[in-house]
């Protein structure tokens, strides 16, 4: 077997953080002509995708847009994962552009970010959970051999990230969902402190405290401060 692939697989399994896997995975998919990727679980309808994201190699702006507007529930590529076990080109994830306007909006906006084309690997987990490893770039040049290699590579990365995410501490997940400062502010809010009191305790200005709450609210897709605190606790982003 191709020795580069063997060493990539070996390297992925030796990493202890998602950040380290990011560079390795960028390098590996680059060899097949892909430029960007995301590795994520797929949430049930209505759920926020952010706690499910294992590793993002997307442009930040697109990531923010896609996750804060709940695009995962409109995206035909994410939807198509539920109907196949084999990797597929995005063009195979068909939708009716005249009636399915939300799907069309997601695909057109992705195009504006230079993400025209891609290759996605569905991940079916025990217990009916569903994940995806999505690679951005043209899949036209892939032969059967390369498709199998990418499929295997994707499963190694997804598996390792899932392991790291559930191993001992939950820091990788916490870091990606909300910042440490946002978590600190929410913890005080959960303890009944007002923005003014939190400002005194943390040494931040009241305006900054409020901004942290607004940012966390946007990231979690919640409607007000209480809702944000509840969701942060529910997703174990803060502990009391």
């Amino acid at each position: 077997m191709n020795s580069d692939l063997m060493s990539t697989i070996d390297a992925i399994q030796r990493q202890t953080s998602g950040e380290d896997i990011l560079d390795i995975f960028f390098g590996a998919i680059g060899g097949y002509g892909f430029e960007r990727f995301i590795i994520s679980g797929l949430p049930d309808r209505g759920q926020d995708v952010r706690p499910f994201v294992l590793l993002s190699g997307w442009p930040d702006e697109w990531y923010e847009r896609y996750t804060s507007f709940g695009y995962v529930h409109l995206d035909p590529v994410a939807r198509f994962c539920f109907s196949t076990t084999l990797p597929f080109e995005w063009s195979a994830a068909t939708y009716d552009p005249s009636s399915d306007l939300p799907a069309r909006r997601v695909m057109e906006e992705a195009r504006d970010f230079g993400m025209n084309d891609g290759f996605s690997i569905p991940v079916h987990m025990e217990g009916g959970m569903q994940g995806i490893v999505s690679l951005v770039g043209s899949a036209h040049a892939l032969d059967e051999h390369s498709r199998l290699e990418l499929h295997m590579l994707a499963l190694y990365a997804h598996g390792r990230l899932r392991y790291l995410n559930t191993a001992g501490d939950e820091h990788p997940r916490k870091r990606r969902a909300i910042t440490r400062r946002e978590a600190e502010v929410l913890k005080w809010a959960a303890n009944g402190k007002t923005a003014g009191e939190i400002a005194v305790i943390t040494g931040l200005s009241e305006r900054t405290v409020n901004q942290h709450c607004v940012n966390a609210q946007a990231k979690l897709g919640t409607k007000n401060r209480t809702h944000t605190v509840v969701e942060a606790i529910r997703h174990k982003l803060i502990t009391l």
Partner: protein
Amino acid sequence: MKVHLLGAHNRARYGDLLEANYKLRHRIFVDLQGWEAIRRPDGRDVDAFDGPDATHILVTDGDELVGGSRFNCHDGPTLLQAVFPGLVTEPLPAPPALGADWTRFYVRPDRREGRRRAPESAALFCAMMEYALSRGYAFITFVSTIYMVELGVSMGMRIVPLGAPANIDGKPTLAAWIEVSETALANIRRATGMSQMLLPVIDLDTRAPHIAVAGLY
């Protein structure tokens, strides 16, 4: 739920369970998964690798068989070398006597339904690693669809391919080996929530244990 270890030392006393194992395997692998090459008119999946040297780990619930696995040491003939040589291009990581080939992993389909993790499957993974450690193995080989890689790695096993993946009957298939270690066992236990030893502590070669059964939960 109970986990049973059947080897040369005790298989005579386990005739009924072994027979149920062959029948359930035929139903699962031939009737449900369509492995026509091993279909037999008597409805029993039994082959050259079920001989006296084979070890079976079987899971029962009450009187019912609900899951199983088979192991053949690499110092003798294995399914990997006999049936899937095309998938193997890399050498084994250690001398053959230090490894076993893991085949016919199954959980009865009605036990896999719903969104829960099947405890039968969890028990088989834990028992596999316990068995490998107890035998002093360094590696366990398997041939599977590549989805097994994601599951195994997500539980904290180190899995190394023995060759490139290939499409067999339209399914992406891989031969690989799992590293045997205490760390791997601890990882699998944590991932599956199994906290205790499943297999009895016995000397398989010299002693006939009173009963090779351990309770779960």
